[in-house]
């Protein structure tokens, strides 16, 4: 990740723009809440759910503590399977490796299935600037690609778009009937369009859900079958994975396949759970292992467990802030609570506001299938932002004075007495103005006539 990009993501501002359309905000909130409700139904059918979460958490913790050994074991076994293994320190190197493979096939097009890693590396932009067409083949990804947008959700990338908008988009680009917005009809049009692309391609690229050290193979989960349509059609398949995707044993997949889809959409498992071990007869299989800031994150004692994430999206589906601010307000491929604890490690100046885009309610940690203490890390990132002197004035000033007042019993009593008096007489224009963002959507409470301390003393007279 480029550290030079220090333009701050202004979450509060972007969220304000998002909620300006109240009807759409309510619709978005409802759509995301529906995903969370389906998750709860799916989870309810598994009595050993909490055991599975504990196991997943322990397995991933073990992986992170031995990550170098597991990666070497994985590479050794993949090479023995006839797979070509590449290592990329950052997104640029990853993109160059992909480009070099494409050049050998002298191809101008690559079909790609959903991969948050390639979004993070900006692979599409890189290849397009080298005159190579990238065709995203997941329906939601294809929709946002046609709109020249990034994903707003890691599992449902086009969840912010209405069917009428998809209808208009397909009418313009795929020649569907004008005004047609039936999802069945639009999906069929995309199926025909994408089947043609699969036939034309020479190289297919996918992300990776799990990479098994013990077998040297990778597992890719989809509902649409698009990853398999791409990978099995072409002579050359590429799988891009972050270093943290490792799991030690094939048997560990029992735990993770039971957790992933239930946490994401409530399904007991994705429709296709594909295990790619060796290249197809006469074909080539590449695996690119990408760091891009992850190994540095591993060294942050309070935050490294965020690398346990299996990208199910349950935390964002449970987040009252994400649901009403939309994925784009986070300014990163991975939005929501998990994005807000990963991104400050990659680029503190750019993402310093994201740990504050939370009520710290803890719903994210409650649903996380690998038990990342997300809300505690959000809180801890706020301390880091403050210690590094990166707090906004609008937060730093009140916190400075609050700290002074709250740490002294005397000062607290005096200020409390003054405030109770002042708030009764000062006009709203002074207490609720542009210097007090807290009062934008809220009325100040009516101040009590006395504090609890004063009342208590009175009772004991």
């Amino acid at each position: 990740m480029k550290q030079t990009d220090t333009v701050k993501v202004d979450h509060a501002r972007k969220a304000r723009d998002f909620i300006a359309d109240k009807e759409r905000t309510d619709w978005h909130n409802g759509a995301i809440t529906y995903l969370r409700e389906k998750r709860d139904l799916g989870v309810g059918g598994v009595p050993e759910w909490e055991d599975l979460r504990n196991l997943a958490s322990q397995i991933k913790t073990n992986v992170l503590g031995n990550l170098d050994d597991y990666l070497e074991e994985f590479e050794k076994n993949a090479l023995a399977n006839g797979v070509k293994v590449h290592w990329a320190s950052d997104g640029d190197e990853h993109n160059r490796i992909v480009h070099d493979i494409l050049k050998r096939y002298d191809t101008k097009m690559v079909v790609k299935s959903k991969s948050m890693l390639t979004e993070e590396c900006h692979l599409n932009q890189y290849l397009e600037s080298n005159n190579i067409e990238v065709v995203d083949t997941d329906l939601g990804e294809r929709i946002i690609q046609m709109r020249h947008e990034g994903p707003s959700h890691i599992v449902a990338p086009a969840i912010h778009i209405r069917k009428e908008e998809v209808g208009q988009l397909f009418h313009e680009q795929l020649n569907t009937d004008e005004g047609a917005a039936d999802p069945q009809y639009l999906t069929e049009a995309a199926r025909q369009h994408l089947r043609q692309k699969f036939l034309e391609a020479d190289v297919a690229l996918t992300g990776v859900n799990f990479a098994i050290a013990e077998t040297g193979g990778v597992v890719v989960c989809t509902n649409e079958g698009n990853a398999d349509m791409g990978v099995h059609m072409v002579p050359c398949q590429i799988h891009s994975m972050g270093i943290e995707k490792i799991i030690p044993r094939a048997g560990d997949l029992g735990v993770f396949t039971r957790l992933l889809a239930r946490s994401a959409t409530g399904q007991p498992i994705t429709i296709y759970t594909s295990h790619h071990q060796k290249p197809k007869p006469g074909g080539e299989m590449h695996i690119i292992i990408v760091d891009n800031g992850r190994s540095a994150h591993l060294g942050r004692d309070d935050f490294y467990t965020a690398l346990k994430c299996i990208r199910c999206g349950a935390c964002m589906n449970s987040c009252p802030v994400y649901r009403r601010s939309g994925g784009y307000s986070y300014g990163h491929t991975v939005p929501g609570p998990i994005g807000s604890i990963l991104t400050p490690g990659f680029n503190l100046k750019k993402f310093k506001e994201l740990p504050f885009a939370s009520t710290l309610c803890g719903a994210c940690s409650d649903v996380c299938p690998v038990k990342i203490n997300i809300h505690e890390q959000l809180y801890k990132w706020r301390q880091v932002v403050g210690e590094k002197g990166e707090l906004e004035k609008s937060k730093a000033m009140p916190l400075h004075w609050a700290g002074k007042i709250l740490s002294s019993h005397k000062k607290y009593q005096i200020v409390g007495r003054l405030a109770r008096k002042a708030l009764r007489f000062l006009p709203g224009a002074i207490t609720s103005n542009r210097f007090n963002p807290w009062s934008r959507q809220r009325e100040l409470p009516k101040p009590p006539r006395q504090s609890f301390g004063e009342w208590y003393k009175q009772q004991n007279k």
Partner: protein
Amino acid sequence: MSKSEILDRIKRNKPQPSTLPVVPDFATSPDNLDQLFAGALRASKGYCFSLDSIEDPEVWLKRQFPGTRNIASAVKDFPGNVAFEEINKPSDLRMIDVAITHAQLGVAENGTVWVDEKAAVVRILPFITQHLVVVLKKQDIVENMHLAYQQISLSDTGFGVFIGGPSKTADIEQSLVVGAQGARSHTVLLSG
């Protein structure tokens, strides 16, 4: 060398090692695995029939998939009209209407079947076909994914997939649509 750089950084930064837990199989051994399997599969929009209920496979295929022209079958009781020997590249299978394969394993908790490249004959077949029919022995159904991974040996295959229903998507306003990029329908025939 990016590899040594990455591994060095990991070595420097990695947290204290912890023990790898033993994963139990969570088996409760219910005696109606086939019913549980069929229920889970139907909930995922798949079909499940008893193989015994099919008297004439040819008639059944015609009735089940009207207008079908090209059938690729890896199951000997089901006559196909596409010879696998004549398939030179995966795209040759793009006109397949119905594919029939064996599955080595079924999983009761989610209705999936395990189809490896040997069973599929060509890796792309279960995906590129318009309709997929899978024949599974009742005694090959296990209770859950833990038991499933005990049964299969990933290292012995180049490719294998758990399939849990027809290809589907909910990417447009979360409306469930069956028949995205893979097979439009998914049928499991239970034998024995």
